[in-house]
């Protein structure tokens, strides 16, 4: 498959909760080896959109395609099977447990009777952490308890878990929230690593300064709609900030009509 074909495509997706319209006419796509920054205020619909992509919610209307094929009977389990891994906002870790248990949480390496291959899981964890993720901290060993790690390290664990399973699409929901500057830098480096690995990524944030430097394209969501989509090469950070202010004030985006819409 060429790098310009789309990996995931959403067509006319809509979702309501009772009489509250959460998403309307969502058309969205992400290509191979592309990093998208999904921006929007709290309550704009980012989380609903992500929950639809990860199979947690079912859309009321619209269709979804993965590598050109229509997705049927979609669920959270199916999403992982086809190659979508998500780093949830709460990081989805069991903090009283060791790193080697957390990396394989819910996807254990086990034999026919369900017994966990602990040796293999520890080896794989060690390999993942040192060779692939480049952790050097002595706090990050397979036996380390996740709750005793720093916020950045924990986020790194959540991200490396997503990468370990060789997902084609990694979704990161607010990965920099609550992190120190240094930790944020580390997380942003991880995301750049996804690109180097020729995988795709959706990076959700409300902090444009974190998003802009590392993404290929920026998609702005507001009040349940996609109000703009910009290739980074076409817009400067200053211009983007200005446009976001406009959205916040009017709910419309200047120049949105020229924006790239699939």
């Amino acid at each position, binding site marked *: 498959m060429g790098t310009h074909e789309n990996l995931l495509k959403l067509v006319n997706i809509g979702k309501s909760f009772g009489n509250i319209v959460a998403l309307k006419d969502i058309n969205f796509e992400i290509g191979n080896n592309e990093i998208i920054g999904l921006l929007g205020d709290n309550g704009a619909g980012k989380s609903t959109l992500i929950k639809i992509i990860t199979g947690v919610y079912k859309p009321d209307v619209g269709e979804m395609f993965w590598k050109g094929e229509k997705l049927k009977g979609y669920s959270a389990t199916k999403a992982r099977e086809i190659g979508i891994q998500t780093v949830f906002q*709460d990081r989805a*870790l*069991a903090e009283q447990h060791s790193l080697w248990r957390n990396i394989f*949480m*819910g996807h254990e390496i086990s034999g026919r*009777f*369900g017994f966990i291959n602990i040796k293999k899981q520890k080896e794989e964890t060690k390999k993942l952490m040192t060779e692939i993720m480049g952790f050097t901290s002595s706090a990050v060993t397979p036996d380390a308890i996740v709750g005793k790690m720093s916020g950045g390290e924990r986020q790194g664990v959540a991200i490396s878990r997503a990468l370990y399973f060789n997902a084609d699409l990694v979704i990161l929901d607010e990965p920099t929230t609550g992190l120190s500057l240094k930790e944020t830098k580390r997380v942003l480096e991880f995301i750049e690593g996804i690109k180097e690995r020729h995988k795709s990524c959706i990076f959700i944030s409300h902090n444009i300064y974190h998003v802009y430097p590392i993404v290929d394209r920026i998609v702005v969501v507001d009040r349940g709609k996609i109000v703009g989509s910009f290739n980074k090469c076409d817009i400067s950070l200053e211009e983007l900030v200005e446009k976001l202010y406009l959205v916040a004030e009017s709910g419309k985006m200047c120049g949105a009509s020229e924006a790239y819409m699939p």
Partner: protein
Amino acid sequence: MKNLFQKNKMEFSVIGAFIIIMLAFFIANPTVFLSFNTYKAVFTVLPITIILTVALVFMISSGELDLSFPSIIGLSAWTFAGLTKLTGNPYIGMFAALVVGSLAGLINGLLVTKLKLSSLVATLGMNFLIRGFIMIFTQGFGISLLFLKDTLFYNIFVGHIGNLPIQMIWGILFAIFAWLLFNRHKFGAYVCYIGDNTMSSKEMGIKVDNIKILTFTLVGFTASFASIFVVLINQMFWPTAGEGYLLVILSAVFLGGTPTWGGIGTIVGGLVGAFIIGFLETGIIASGLTGFYTQFFFGLIIIFSLISHRFAGLTKK
């Protein structure tokens, strides 16, 4: 070696406590504690405590509570005794008891997951409900199974190997099975992840409700397994069978080092906790104190254990 100690410091601290308590008893009355008969007496009933304690470690680690197991023991004991008397075949009685106990556990699990009831209150209610049911239908009368004594069935479960009550082997085998399930199997891992963080477990694709239902069913099954020993030891079913175990078992779980907040637990600790509880009453009386002191020392040891756990670094995040 240091690493082994570091990783299992809770277990080592509980074992240390057990050794100290046993030494104290030994010094207080060496004659009693040099006699194997003392151990034989304790080992006759200790396996019931062991079996129930290790099962409850799963429950507490999953972040839920089951207060209904004493009544499930009663219900299964009644089923076992009643059907054995009726058919003359203890194997049929035992099979039915295991099914009934597991079903009672399953109902607990469904109440907690599907109807979203608090496990503490739901199983408290079930405890009264089941016991009440037994009382109404037995009218307080017991069932004698004296004819089972010295049959093959009797000897398999509560016979002797040399001087050792055979149920002790059942207890230890069950503890080993539980250890493997808890520490080496996916089921034990999921139980702990759910107790640690239910939302995380869901997000990682663990079927939270199914695991919880299985955990309640496991405790129900275990209670019914224990009920077989309860009945066979006295060759008698009483409608109160299982009463009195609730607080003793929970004490063994907690003083064994399994914390109250869920997410982690220790089968080895639970096993040693059961030993401490099992020897306590015998030891106190052998030391020359009256039975009036039993509860006092129970309380003292529980409080001291919890304090020592705190110093061993067991703190809620």
